[in-house]
């Protein structure tokens, strides 16, 4: 223990004029230590988070996915509704780098559809038609973010050829483009849904924790009831109540509301629990004894300690929402075509025949799995980092 000996005698006046001057007059290793000692809770969280390799990878992956969602029109080579006659259930394209003459860069061959002796669809590569894959090609016209009218796409082939990175569906639409577009709904519905549940959870949990007593008791029993209802039937019942004639934006918000009606319960519990324990913490009492106003106690003492836990709870709640949307859309009660989400894409794989003959239709599920995993890794890392009492 490095306690300094208590002083005796008259009250001291600090010799040093300012705090800045005191910190400036230190050697390099001291300054490094001082940097650790003076780092705020968020800096400490970040410091610990940086040690969590998996969570960092997850964060980068998720950032990448959200960039894809934001620039879907640009990244997807085709529009979602563009159907290619004669290319129904085309398999994922083989990308070649070498032809008979050697290396020529990435290209695809033209495809020729037909049927074999069992009348199954088959596609053959036409060796005479070579379509080099190029970056920034002109294709379907779109409005990026509803503002810039353009027809530039990240990659593609010349007008006569086609590139189906992940194959096509039953109407001959490019699955890759549709997955890219689907990212938009599937990833944002998780965030919007969690945001809504968070607002609900914060208000209801806050009321429950703040007022306590009978109000708390009633709200808690309500949550018990809500949590005991199996999620999928409840979602189904609620989603079935959404009018069929609503447009896709209306349905989108209806579905987020349906998801958050179930989702708020867990967050409300977290909020209430934290609020109850923080309210009784010594430092809140200390602040009250010091004459600090209730408002300042809430904003300065409770909320900052709250946020790290809430961030973790939210991160871990997002995958549930994404799975929820996917399940609802899969059974046809969620997002309605022509809007595209990963769930609606998976509708095509409901029939076992389709899956057996055209296994690429399951690829959207892979995106769901990866996204949910990444959110869980990220939440895990954040939870480890946010614990304020594990200082290493």
């Amino acid at each position: 223990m490095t306690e300094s000996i208590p002083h005796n005698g008259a009250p001291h006046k600090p010799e040093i004029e300012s705090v800045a001057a005191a910190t400036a007059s230190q050697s390099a290793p001291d300054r490094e230590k001082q940097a650790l000692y003076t780092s705020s809770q968020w800096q400490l969280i970040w410091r610990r988070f940086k040690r969590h390799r998996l969570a960092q990878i997850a964060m980068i992956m998720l950032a990448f996915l959200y960039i894809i969602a934001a620039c879907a029109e640009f990244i997807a080579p085709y529009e979602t509704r563009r159907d290619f006659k004669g290319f129904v259930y085309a398999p994922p394209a083989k990308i070649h780098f070498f032809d008979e003459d050697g290396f020529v860069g990435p290209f695809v061959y033209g495809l020729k559809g037909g049927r074999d002796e069992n009348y199954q669809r088959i596609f053959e590569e036409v060796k005479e038609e070579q379509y080099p894959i190029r970056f920034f090609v002109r294709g379907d016209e779109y409005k990026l973010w509803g503002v810039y009218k353009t027809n530039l796409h990240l990659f593609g082939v010349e007008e006569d050829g086609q590139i189906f990175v992940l194959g096509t569906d039953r109407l001959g639409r490019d699955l890759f483009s549709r997955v890219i577009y689907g990212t938009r709904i599937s990833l944002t519905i998780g965030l919007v849904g969690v945001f809504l549940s968070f607002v609900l959870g914060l208000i209801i949990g806050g009321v429950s924790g703040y007022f306590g007593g009978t109000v708390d008791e009633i709200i808690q029993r309500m949550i018990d009831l809500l949590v005991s209802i199996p999620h999928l039937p409840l979602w189904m019942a609620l989603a079935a109540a959404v009018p069929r004639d609503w447009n896709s934006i209306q349905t989108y918000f209806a579905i987020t509301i349906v998801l958050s009606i179930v989702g708020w319960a867990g967050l409300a519990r977290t909020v209430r629990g934290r609020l109850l324990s923080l309210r009784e913490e010594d430092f809140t009492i200390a602040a009250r004894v010091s004459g600090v106003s209730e408002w300042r106690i809430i904003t300065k003492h409770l909320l900052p300690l709250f946020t790290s836990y809430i961030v973790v709870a939210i991160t871990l709640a997002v995958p549930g929402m994404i799975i929820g949307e996917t399940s609802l859309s899969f059974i046809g009660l969620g997002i309605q075509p022509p809007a595209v989400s990963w769930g609606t894409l998976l509708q095509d794989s409901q029939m076992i025949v389709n899956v057996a003959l055209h296994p690429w239709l399951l690829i959207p599920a892979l995106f769901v799995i990866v996204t949910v995993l990444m959110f869980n890794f990220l939440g895990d890392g954040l939870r480890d980092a946010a614990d304020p009492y594990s200082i290493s």
Partner: protein
Amino acid sequence: MVDESKLNGATMSETQDVAPSNILLEVKDLKKYFPIQKGLLRRTTGYVKAVDGVSLFIEEGETLGLVGESGCGKTTTGRCIVRVYEPTAGDILFHENGSAINLNDLERQELKAFRRHLQMIFQDPFSSLNPRMTVLELVGEPLLAHGIASGTELEDRVAEMVVAVGLKVEHLPRYPHSFSGGQRQRIGIARALVQRPKLVVCDEPVSALDVSVQSQVVNLLQDLQTELNLTYLFVAHDMSVVRQISNRIAVMYVGKLVEVAESEELLRNPKHPYSETLLSAVPRPNPHHRMQRLNLEGEPADPANAPSGCVFHPRCQYMEDICKMEAPPLAELTPGHHVACHFADSLALQGIAYSDSIAVISG
């Protein structure tokens, strides 16, 4: 601040005949009952009588030690005095410039303003400091809250206070996580004293600390007391810490005071069987003054269901029939020595030599 006209009520006339001139705080018949609620409708089925009729006074500049076992209500008493808990009943009179203010009558706004004079040091140096605030913010917060200082003036006053408790100016931008338990407690002390309070309730300020650090913090509290003319209510369960700092000691058992006396008097000449047992537990550095260790039978009484008569009777080795029936009042036996025991004047109880407390082995 406090409305002067409010103070001229019944409380004024009541106190004038009792109080000696230099009394700072007077507590009269303080009660704090916590309701026990059961069932879905939260019906109140009983009360935990944590503090049940405590009366005491503290003179300006002195330290009153409040000792007792865990759960005897000493912390609750301290917290009622600073109004962290709302007392169920009783008066808490704060004497200032010849007039008395009843803290229990103050409204929220008045109380907030009055809190400058009344501060508290907490037991746990880890949970009593917000981990998200720097030392500067923590110690400066009371000044900011009362609008006493801001900006560079605040920084100067905080720096001065932090140096006075034995920390350094370069500690100001640091967060609590970079300090040891003893240093954190110093931050807590700085925070409590920065607005120059008159009365400080020290709620077991050293019991969470390492023994080697305890005496440093107690010494610091004593130095600051003379420097800043502070009055302490020192709550603790450790008799050896309390006797080092206290002028007078009050012994509490299950919500009631059982004995109050000058420190030396209480140590040498305890009059309540419970005080005797507490004293027998104090480690003695002098091997020639070894005393028989008295072990109490059973558990402390349940404050929700206190025994009849004297609350201590089920564990008292001197118990007679009257103890089961009648609760003894806290009566003055000799000047300044108050005891709540039916046989206070007849029992020959064993105390400890005061010199033992100074830890000198003479031979």
